């Protein structure tokens, strides 16, 4: 009743308006609604609309795919023009490029932005998972799926380095970020940019060659304060698990293998027999794993005035992983603040405080996977057995983590602060100082009591570790921008210094009177072993960048950076990394013929050098290892030389050529970019095997050369664009070809390390399986005269009648032919459905679950069930069940290509009218499913995992809400 009288009390008004882009172009198919009201109107092709509103002071809400939603208070006006800012990556957006930002249309290098939609509704613990398949040339691989979600590798444009790290540099709010990326709260991230080519990454000099990921955290916008609450909760289940043998299957397998299925009793130990006779079989994997549960809650307050902007957010993340006891908790608080103090002076801070708890030693999936099912997980009283198989005490209980005391807490403050001043007398000249501090400490304590094998043999074993990180970065940046006539210049000069310091103190103690005080009793230990580690590295850098722009048509960027780093050898402390890039905005030419059909074309080219300084502190010094002896019963400290000094050691250098184009068709309804690159990396940091006669078997040297060549294509298209229904597609594909150009300067391959000139860094190289020897084959006159029927047959490649190392060859490719991502987003009224498919094609890998000697000589481990050759089942794919069947341990290769439905998200925006009634401004509800479907011919755990015994990939089902007040 009150509602009706309120409506009656207001004066209905008809409003006319126009919706335009920032550039003033009309925006069609935008939806214009009244905040808190019903109905709405679309804009027509001229961007115009007419809408009846209940009151002249109502607020309009204008939304459109590809643009930020905007609220416009009418304040009595009846004609309005609404300008929308683009959200998606369009050529007009501003992008962060390192030491500043640029209009995308002015960017000359290859800088990819992650579509902000990719960061939304993403219930992941690690922002890297948002990069999967989202940016061409950025390859994210998962190596496991623990609770923390840190089993992720990011490689940009292929591997440059053979031994050195290929991890990109991560920069958060301008400050290089070291350590665990899972300590960054993804909900606080506003944007992610990836610098891929030399022109873009050369400004990071000796750290740029693996690419750079720039993360910018959120900031409030001018307007009244907004409170947002975002939360999700979900469950994780093992996506795929091959059948691991049960007790009876294992018994048959063991007997077949050892005794040809005869006289089985004699092959089993008493424990195995007892279990078998009692019909007991232990599903170790089942005991070690559970359904994972994860939830996150974020509460933020943001807003601002023209002078002050702020974003304050607190969050809680709680993950219980699929392995029992695999827990991860993170609490974080972020304060981002920006204050315009005077016209000419601005200062700000972006600060995150976090508390991360990684405590709990998980049950071991891989140990459980291999554990004999005919052994005992529990004692009669229900406690865990220390050694489940008393006759083979080598095996600890895979579940022992559940009774280990394990505490692991990290506290961290990561703060990036700046002060920016316009300098007097010279118009366009400004000075900025950035000061970043990263302070983190981590406390770990672990205790193995007498209820574990480790603790039982040591009478209790305790390890405590405290580590302390203190990093600082100080940057002085001068910037000068000036336009005259059609010329624009933008000059940036940097002088910076950085120090990273990590100190670790540990204490290992053993032999305690009892287990009561866990790791808090080193004072009564029989053995106390302190340890101490220290690492400090420093850097000093100078960088200059010049951007020149003629009439928005011709763009030039020239950069150079000089880095001095303490980690380099004494003879090479400094390196210089120059680059140049050119771009031509062809569509800004007066003669441009494309019209609206082909409205944008920019051509880019860049060439430059960047480095990889992956040398750890003190690595260049001649070092000794501890090798102590005794004087009677006392320690006699001893040392022997272990590492040769390398005063000439320096950075790896990557020289990269990049040619690309950005384009837009149909008024940017279809837009995208294309890049071709060739990167050559020289002075590789290689661990060169040297003659063991030196007494040391390897030395790190700058030798060798690699090359990565590739193309990348990214397309974004708005396929259907109707007020009630829209469909957009994001597609990207990348091809990278990697090869070694040189190793030791003498054209020789390194067979020991499987490095071959002209081939990729990673290859499958070995004997080629040629089926299985069958009964009736002429084995005696073959290259394997001693083989038995059922043995692995190896191809005698050179036909010399014997199998020797000369018969090894390349098998398939470990480098994908291509990888691609496809996202389709459908919107029907208030529903949005988004599906992301990710594929990697053309990889061949050996499946280690098929290896023939996984179970050890006396069948001491379990494995997956599979078919074996027998005289009655003369298959040609897998040998007989016998240790001798594959004497050269030939691996079994499979196609590891896959297509995966990585994410599906269904979201519903609750009508404002309803939300308002609940006291909210907006309410969004969503459900996502992750890794729901995979198509692959791979028979192991998962084609993506390096090790097929790692914790398997998870299917994740999550529901979440986003509320604004």
């Amino acid at each position: 009743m009150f509602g009706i009288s309120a409506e009656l009390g207001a004066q209905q008004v008809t409003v006319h308006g126009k919706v335009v882009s920032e550039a003033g172009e009309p925006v069609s198919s935008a939806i214009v609604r009244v905040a808190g009201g019903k109905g709405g109107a679309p804009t027509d092709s001229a961007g115009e609309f007419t809408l009846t509103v209940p009151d002249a002071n109502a607020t309009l809400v204008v939304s459109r795919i590809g643009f930020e939603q905007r609220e416009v208070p009418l304040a009595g006006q009846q004609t309005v023009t609404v300008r929308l800012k683009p959200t998606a990556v369009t050529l007009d957006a501003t992008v962060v490029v390192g030491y500043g930002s640029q209009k995308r249309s002015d960017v000359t290098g290859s800088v990819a932005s992650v579509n902000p939609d990719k960061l939304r509704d993403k219930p992941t613990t690690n922002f890297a998972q948002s990069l999967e398949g989202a940016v061409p040339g950025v390859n994210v691989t998962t190596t496991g799926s623990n609770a923390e979600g840190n089993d992720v590798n990011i490689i940009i444009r292929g591997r440059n380095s053979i031994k050195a790290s290929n991890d990109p540099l991560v920069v958060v709010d301008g400050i290089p970020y070291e350590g665990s990326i899972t300590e960054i709260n993804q909900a606080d991230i506003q944007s992610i940019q990836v610098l891929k080519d030399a022109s873009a990454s050369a400004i990071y000099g000796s750290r740029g060659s693996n690419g750079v990921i720039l993360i910018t955290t959120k900031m409030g916008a001018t307007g009244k304060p907004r409170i947002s609450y975002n939360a999700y909760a979900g469950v994780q289940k093992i996506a795929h698990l091959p059948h691991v043998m049960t007790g009876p299957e294992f018994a048959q397998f063991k007997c077949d293998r050892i005794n040809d299925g005869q006289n089985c009793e004699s092959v089993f130990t008493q424990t195995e027999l007892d279990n078998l006779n009692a019909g007991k079989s232990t599903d170790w994997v089942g005991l070690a794993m559970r359904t994972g549960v994860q939830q996150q809650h974020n509460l933020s307050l943001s807003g601002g005035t023209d002078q002050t902007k702020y974003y304050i957010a607190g969050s809680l993340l709680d993950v219980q992983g699929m392995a029992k006891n695999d827990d991860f908790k993170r609490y974080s608080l972020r304060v981002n603040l920006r204050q315009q103090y005077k016209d000419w002076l601005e200062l700000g801070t972006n600060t995150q405080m976090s508390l991360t708890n990684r405590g709990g030693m998980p049950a071991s999936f891989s140990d459980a996977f291999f554990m004999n099912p005919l052994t005992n997980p529990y004692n009669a009283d229900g406690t865990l057995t220390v050694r489940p198989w008393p006759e083979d005490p080598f095996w600890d209980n895979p579940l022992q983590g559940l009774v280990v005391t394990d505490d692991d807490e990290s506290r961290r403050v990561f703060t990036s602060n700046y002060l920016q001043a316009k300098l007097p007398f010279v118009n366009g000249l400004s000075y900025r100082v950035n000061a970043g501090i990263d302070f983190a400490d981590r406390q770990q304590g672990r205790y193995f009591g007498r209820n574990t094998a480790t603790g039982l043999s040591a009478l209790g074993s305790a390890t405590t570790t405290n580590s302390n990180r203190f990093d600082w970065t100080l940057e002085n940046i001068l910037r000068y921008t000036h336009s005259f006539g059609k010329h624009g210049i933008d000059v940036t000069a940097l002088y910076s210094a950085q120090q990273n310091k990590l100190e670790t103190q540990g204490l290992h103690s053993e032999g305690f009177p009892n287990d009561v005080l866990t790791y808090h009793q080193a004072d009564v230990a029989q053995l106390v072993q302190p340890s101490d580690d220290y690492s400090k590295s420093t850097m000093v850098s100078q960088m200059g960048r010049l951007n020149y722009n003629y009439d928005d048509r011709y763009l030039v960027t020239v950069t150079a950076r000089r880095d001095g780093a303490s980690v380099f050898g004494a003879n090479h402390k400094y390196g210089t990394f120059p680059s140049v890039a050119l771009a031509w905005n062809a569509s800004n030419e007066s003669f441009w013929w494309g019209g609206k059909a082909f409205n944008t074309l920019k051509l880019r080219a860049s060439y430059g050098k960047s480095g990889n300084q992956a040398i750890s502190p003190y690595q260049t010094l001649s070092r000794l290892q501890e090798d102590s002896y005794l004087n009677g019963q006392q320690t006699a400290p001893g040392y022997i030389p272990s590492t040769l000094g390398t005063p000439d050691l320096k950075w790896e250098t990557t020289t990269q050529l990049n040619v690309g184009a950005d384009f837009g068709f149909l008024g940017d309804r279809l837009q995208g970019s294309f890049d071709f690159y060739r990167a050559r990396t020289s002075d590789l940091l290689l661990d060169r095997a040297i003659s063991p006669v030196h007494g040391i078997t390897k030395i790190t040297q700058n030798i060798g050369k690699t090359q990565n060549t590739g193309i990348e294509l990214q397309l974004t298209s708005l396929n259907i664009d109707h007020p009630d229904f829209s469909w957009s597609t994001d597609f990207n594909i990348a091809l990278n070809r990697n090869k070694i150009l040189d190793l030791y300067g003498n054209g020789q391959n390194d067979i020991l390390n499987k490095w071959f000139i002209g081939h990729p860094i990673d290859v499958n190289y070995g004997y080629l399986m040629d089926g299985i020897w069958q009964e009736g084959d002429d084995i005696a006159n073959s290259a394997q005269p001693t083989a038995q029927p059922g043995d692995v047959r190896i191809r005698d490649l050179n036909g010399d009648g014997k199998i020797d190392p000369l018969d090894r060859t390349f098998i398939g490719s470990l480098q994908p032919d291509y990888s691609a991502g496809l996202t389709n987003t459908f919107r029907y009224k208030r529903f949005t459905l988004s599906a992301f498919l990710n594929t990697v094609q053309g990889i061949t890998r050996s499946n280690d679950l098929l290896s023939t000697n996984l179970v050890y000589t006396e069948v001491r481990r379990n494995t997956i069930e599979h078919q074996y050759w027998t005289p009655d089942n003369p298959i040609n794919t897998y040998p007989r069940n016998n240790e001798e069947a594959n004497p050269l341990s030939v691996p079994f290769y499979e196609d590891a290509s896959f297509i995966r439905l990585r994410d599906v998200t269904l979201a519903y925006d609750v009508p404002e009218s309803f939300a308002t009634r609940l006291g909210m401004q907006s309410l969004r509800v969503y459900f996502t499913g992750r890794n729901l479907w995979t198509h692959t011919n791979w028979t192991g755990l998962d084609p993506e995992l390096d090790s097929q015994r790692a914790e398997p990939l998870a299917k994740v089902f999550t529901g979440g809400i986003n509320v604004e007040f």
Partner: protein
Amino acid sequence: MSSSDLQGPRRAPLTTDRHRNEPMTRRSLTRATLLGLACLTGLGLAGCSKDFLTESPPHIIVADNLYTDSAGFEAALNGLYAQARKERYGQDNSGNDILTTPMTIGVDNGWGNYVSTPERVFDEWGTRNNSQVDAYLGLWTWLYQTINAANTIIGRAENPDIEWSEQTKNRVIAEARFMRAWCYRHLTYLWGPVPLNLTESSGETIKTDWQRAPLDSVYAQMEQDLLFAEANLPETSDDPGKVVKAVAQHYLAELYLRMNQPDKAEAEAQAVINSGLYSLITTRYGVNASQPGVPFMDQFVDGNVNRDQGNTEVLWAWQYQELVPGGGASIMRRYWVNRYYNIKGVKVAPEYGGRGIGRLAPTAWALNLYEPGDDRGSIYAIRKFYLYNDPDNLPTGKQLGDTVFLSWTAEKNSSSKWPSTRKWDWTSAIDPIGNETYGDEPYLRLAETYLLLAEAQFDEGKLADAANTLNILRARANASPITASDVTIDFILDERSRELLSEGERRYALLRTHKWLERTRLYNPIAGPNITERDTIFPIPQAVIDANIGAAMAQNPGY
């Protein structure tokens, strides 16, 4: 009693007892940081950054701060002893694949009972014996690593800035040169001619053209090193693990046998025997003296091994200690004690030696080599039966304490009822089924010096002297005396097996006397049929040949 007494032993941290050569103190580091910051805000004063980029680790030992005074050199020597001790530990410094395997099985008196990869090579030979065998690279790398450590000491000891007495300096060099010769002894027995590396390796001069030095020149270097050690090592040491003069003399005697100079060999062996410092153990002594046993075995019991514990026979004792940094570990018991716990009704017990995996085993021939009454073949020296001790697991019809007799008629793989030597019996009170042994072990005994003496005397044609020498050994073990007419090289090798079963390096003695092929074929039915002339010398590890890209390194013939 003070409170510190209640807290149990405290261990010293692993530092040498002297100030490390720290280029910058902590206070000056802070000052440098501040200076760095000052420079930075001042913009562009590049000169400021020179010190800022210099590395000065406060926490690790680098070459330039260790070899600066006598304490540093003592620490470097300790490293050498810790290295040598690894002969009885596993490959790649692990608790598996004991490094002695290639030296002690695949010979007349030793074979691999449970064939996992390394033992298999020395049972099956043939194609399994190739340049890719991990054990070879493991041995090679360990020996040259020790040589480089010794070379570093020998070279850097000549630095005139070190303040020490000439005597200390020469003793330090003597220990290092001894260790170097000891490593080349291993290398030449295993591979014949090998590269002779006598200088500290440097990162700036990586050699890719190593050449194998002729055996004569390696022997000449070993002789020089051992003679220097003989002249400069002390006669005795308070530190029970140190090498002394007699050890150098013993190895000189052995070297002269290899160099076909039996007169010199005899003189060196006599020097040890007649020094008045050593005598064979002939009466019961030490920690187990009141238990049934024989004098011969007392010297192997932890607590009896060192000279200051009453052992007059030991020349070089290897030191181990549980739960002490630097305490090391041996896996001799793990590798020699058999898997008797696989016999139903018998479980692991300290009196049975502790838990072993029996991968190394004496041949039936070696077990049958003892005359009745010879202490070295007695039940105190060789495990020949067990008593049922597992009440939960008795076979039907058996009682606790009933005897399980072992049999050793024919070698067959995976025989858990095969006898084993008791020399390495040891059980941890803390972890009764642990892998490692932390009891001290004799490495070199006077008994072996007698055997070298007999060998020298035989080579010189002094058969009566040789018989006398052997009789001294035999008398101690209650074996019957022999006469000059009994002395042949085969008899000396038989005696050596009786005395040193599982000790020393059996393969080396057989190679030195050119008897390996003949005797292994005769007495080792597992390996005998598989070995050929080629196998008298091992293949150079492939990694060594592959890394020598500057010059071809010849492989031994037949590989």
